[in-house]
């Protein structure tokens, strides 16, 4: 049973951002959402999270319209990993992760020993347990992003929706986040991962959805959809997917932006 969108129109009252979206997020797969700036990736993700109501069509969770789900039950099924932002509030890393347990506790609830243990275990899994008591703004951007992933794990939600989790991170931290997203898939989660880097999709995606101008340009298994033609159409620039041979002989596909024709001499 999964999260799915059928013939979905999304946006805000009076401003339609996208339309005609059909999507499904099967367990144990990473779906990468690619699209240029302003293509509607974030609004689509917020709609799939139930933060913005669908304009038409529907989003269903376990076959039931998302809008009919009580907020807490929905939160226990769908986890959100936002881009790590600066905050003026110095929660410790552990306290930040404990907040993932909110949906499992009542309005007057506070985290108990079990919640604390689960949060600590999530930190352990992401190898950031030593940071538990550090203030969240005194860890690196990559570590903060890992803490938010740990929080999503602490919700125990079957679906994890990540909004450009690699943005604003250095090269090494981007690779780290990609590895952890791939590991999360192995635990059976359904993952939606939006990114500006086709290479990230080439690296971890099982399926790819290309969004342009609020419509699906192409969608399908990563191996089929991630090709030079589709990527060039998606970004409006010549893009080539090339194969590189790594040390040891393994082959990997990577994406290169080519010079636009009018710039060629």
């Amino acid at each position, binding site marked *: 049973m999964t999260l799915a969108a059928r013939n979905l129109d999304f946006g805000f009252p009076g401003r339609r951002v996208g339309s005609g979206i059909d999507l499904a997020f099967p367990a144990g797969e990473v779906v990468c959402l690619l699209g240029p700036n302003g293509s509607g990736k974030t609004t689509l993700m917020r709609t799939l999270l139930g*933060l913005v109501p669908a304009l038409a069509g529907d989003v269903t969770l376990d076959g039931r319209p998302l809008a009919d789900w009580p907020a807490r039950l929905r939160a226990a099924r769908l986890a959100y990993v936002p881009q790590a932002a600066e*905050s003026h509030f110095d*929660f410790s890393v552990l*306290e930040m992760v404990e907040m993932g347990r*909110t949906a499992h506790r009542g*309005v*007057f609830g*506070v985290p108990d020993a079990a919640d604390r243990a689960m949060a600590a275990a999530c930190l352990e899994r992401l190898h950031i347990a030593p940071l538990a008591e550090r203030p969240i703004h005194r860890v690196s951007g990559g570590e903060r992003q890992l803490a938010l992933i740990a929080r999503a794990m602490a919700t125990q939600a079957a679906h994890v929706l990540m909004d450009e989790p690699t943005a604003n991170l250095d090269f090494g931290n981007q690779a780290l986040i990609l590895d952890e997203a791939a590991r999360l898939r192995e635990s059976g989660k359904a993952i939606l991962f939006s990114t500006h880097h086709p290479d990230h999709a080439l690296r971890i995606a099982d399926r790819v959805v290309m969004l342009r101008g609020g419509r699906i340009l192409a969608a399908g298994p990563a191996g089929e959809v991630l090709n030079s033609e589709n990527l060039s159409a998606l970004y409006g620039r010549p893009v080539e997917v090339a194969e590189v041979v790594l040390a040891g002989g393994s082959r990997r596909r990577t994406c290169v932006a080519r010079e636009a024709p009018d710039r060629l001499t």
Partner: protein
Amino acid sequence: MMLPRSRFPLALAGVVAALAILVAWSFTVGRFAVAPSDVVRALWASLFGGESGLARNVEAVVLQVRAPRVAAALAVGAALAAAGAAYQNLFRNPLVSPDILGVAAGCALGAGIAVLASLPIAAIQAFAFVGGLIAVGLVVAIGTWIGGRDPILTLVLTGVVVGSAFGAGIALVKYVADPYNQLPAITFWLLGSFTGALPRDLPATLIPIALSVAVLWLLRWRIDVLALSEDEARSLGVDVRRLRLVVIVAATLATASAVSLAGTIGWVGLLVPHAARLVTGAAFARVLPLSLAIGAAFMLAVDTACRTLFATELPPGVVTAFIGTPAFVVLLAAAFRRSA
């Protein structure tokens, strides 16, 4: 270095000990010095019955003059600090407080109108509460309408604007007030003062303050989640709208009670939660108790100093402003350097 989490019990114990010393000091000093043992005997007799064996006037000073004043200072300091801590999480903004948001001015206008109409204390409270709710509602509405890229600055400026509009209303109230009876009372009270704390008025203010603090305490973990972005809070399963409304009502009720008791005393609500967070991190379950204790201690220290340092009493609101304004500049600079 000690962890913020483990610093909390020590810090709370330290502040509570300081608070106890301050209370003892405040009872004994003043125009009429009372020996500490006499204070204990008077309080003991009044709480548990029996004869204190003290002179009438000594007993009167302790029970009728000092006790209500000490209680009022403690309650007002605690209430303003708790309200400030709640507003700061609520607006995800470390630079707001009852006075900066214009809530205190709204409460003061409401209370001023009630004073003008010679209404009883309960009505003054109710008017203050409604005035405060209108002010915070306006700040939220205008802030949302303006939007903008820097929500912290937008909210602070909106609070200034709303506060000055209500300030004009207060000026109007003073203008039409009876210059012999009402005007001095209103002016005095607006400066912030505990001289008017009467024993019979105390329950009417202490009960709403206790009630709001209890609500904030029960919601302490949810209030942490409010400090995250709205999308995050909602995706974690929090009904952000309803929770905000409850927290606004509780914080505004505490502010209104404090204002109707002691006028507008600024800066406590801004600075005290900052001090608490600095010591113990952002978790509201630690910030709230520590803010209550620091707020109460700070307010009592200021008020006691105000009535004993010079021959004439200083208004405590003036003293907190002298301390608060430079501290605000420092916090403002820190906040902007951090978001830059």
